[in-house]
């Protein structure tokens, strides 16, 4: 058991002036940051607000910044953090704080509502079912692992530093778009929206979203860049446009 120092962000309401407050608690073997925060809450900060649910890295509720890195508190082991300096815990910086470590992430749900929904082709069989080859569905399976923790949104500098929430939907919703757009049954076209309304051109491929994803989704290489390439084909590639003119304008 070792006494460990923490610097935790405290803020009283969305408009309140926030700041770090120092706490000390005993850390034992096997503890994660969320355990330590709960212990501090029980011992010395009963009014500390923290959002959590599953404590298993599957609900995406306890997203925060630990030592400056966007992480799930429940999946960050204390034994992996240096203890010679205080452990800093603060809320996600790309979203407004409701209180202490709790952010208002509702903007993400509003964004999601505006994305073209899935619309499958007519059923392949008379009983109303479809046939999909395993290799075709495997490509989009990865995107379905997303737990909507919004850590990728938090670390993306377009939202975090430039606050372009009105013009850019962020990595989470490029993954969501990719899951729909690359689905073998889907018939909708989302490329114009990706270019114009959702701002995929703002992404400058820092790969920070991929680095923080707790589900290890290869966001940049498998979702964003393939979508960027499709946007290039649709809007910026004169040869492709010419090819479409002669081939009747169909997309694969």
């Amino acid at each position, binding site marked *: 058991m070792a006494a460990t120092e923490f610097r935790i962000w405290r803020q009283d309401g969305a408009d309140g002036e926030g700041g770090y407050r120092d706490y000390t608690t005993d850390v034992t073997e096997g503890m994660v940051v969320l355990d330590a925060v709960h212990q501090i809450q029980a011992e010395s900060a009963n009014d500390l607000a923290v959002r959590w649910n599953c404590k298993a890295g599957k609900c995406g509720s306890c997203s925060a910044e630990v*030592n400056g890195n966007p992480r799930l508190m429940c999946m960050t082991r204390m034994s992996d953090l240096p203890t010679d300096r205080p452990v800093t815990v603060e809320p996600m910086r790309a979203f407004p704080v409701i209180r202490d470590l709790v952010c208002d992430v509702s903007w993400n749900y509003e964004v999601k509502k505006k994305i073209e929904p899935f619309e499958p082709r007519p059923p392949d069989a008379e009983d109303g079912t479809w046939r999909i080859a395993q290799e075709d569905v495997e490509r989009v399976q990865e995107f379905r692992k997303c737990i909507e923790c919004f850590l990728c949104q938090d670390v993306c500098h377009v939202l975090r530093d430039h606050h372009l929430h009105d013009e850019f939907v962020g990595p989470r919703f490029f993954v969501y778009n990719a899951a729909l757009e690359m689905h073998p049954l889907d018939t909708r076209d989302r490329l114009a929206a990706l270019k114009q309304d959702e701002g995929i051109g703002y992404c400058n491929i820092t790969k*920070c979203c991929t680095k923080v994803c707790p589900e290890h989704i290869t966001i940049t290489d498998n979702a964003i860049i393939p979508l960027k390439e499709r946007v290039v084909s649709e809007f910026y590639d004169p040869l492709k446009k010419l090819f479409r003119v002669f081939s009747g304008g169909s997309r694969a």
Partner: protein
Amino acid sequence: MAFPAVLKRRSFGETQRQDAWWLQPGAVVVGLGLASAYATWAALQADHYVFGGYLSPLYSPEVFGLSHHAWFQGFPSWWPGFVPQSPALFILILPLGFRATCYYYRGAYYKAFWADPPACAVGEPRNAYRGENSFPLIVQNIHRYFLYAMMAWIFVFFPIDVYRAFEFETASGGHAFGIGVGSFVLLINWLLLSGYALGCHSTRHVIGGFRNVMAGRPFQSACYRCVSCLNRRHMAWAWLSLIWVTFSDIYVRLCSMGVWTDFRLV
């Protein structure tokens, strides 16, 4: 998608990260800076780029030039007088453009040279940001055209160079098969550049990524899987091929200058 709140902006370099976040962008500045400086210097030399059958990859293909590798002897009359008569200047724009617009390098040099951002979750120096959404960076979308050009290097120019790197002059003035250390240097250069270009994100799209349904196209599916496999290590291919192309020029240059000896193995 109106965002209801005003968020506090962080100052340049502001972060709670305790790790050496500056190390990676710093290494990119040093690596890309050295490689760019050397390539510029080497391209302007117009000398010591040939040693027997070896042709420096920075000068390949030698369209206009004075060596026996040149397609056309001498420089054309329309070549501007203020531009050095270097064969490298005639072709280098295409490999350079390919690397400059590469998705991996873009992410790396935006961070390292523009601090946009300096590293993940580290504050930026500027408020304004247009990304690749408008001019000038929207031009990065030209990447696939540089890729098409690179296919000439992968499938034509470098294979010819490698073939000639295994040919050595005989005493009677003819040519015979042989192997020198330089033969392997140029062979490895070709393989590394192939791994880099064939694993490019645009290659992945063009070869099959544009499709949602790959079933029923076994050849295309196999190609897509192969390119995806290379793509997973795209950063490593990018750096290894950059380092090796630089080393290949140094090797040919120093052999040509008589500083290094090209040992014959066969």
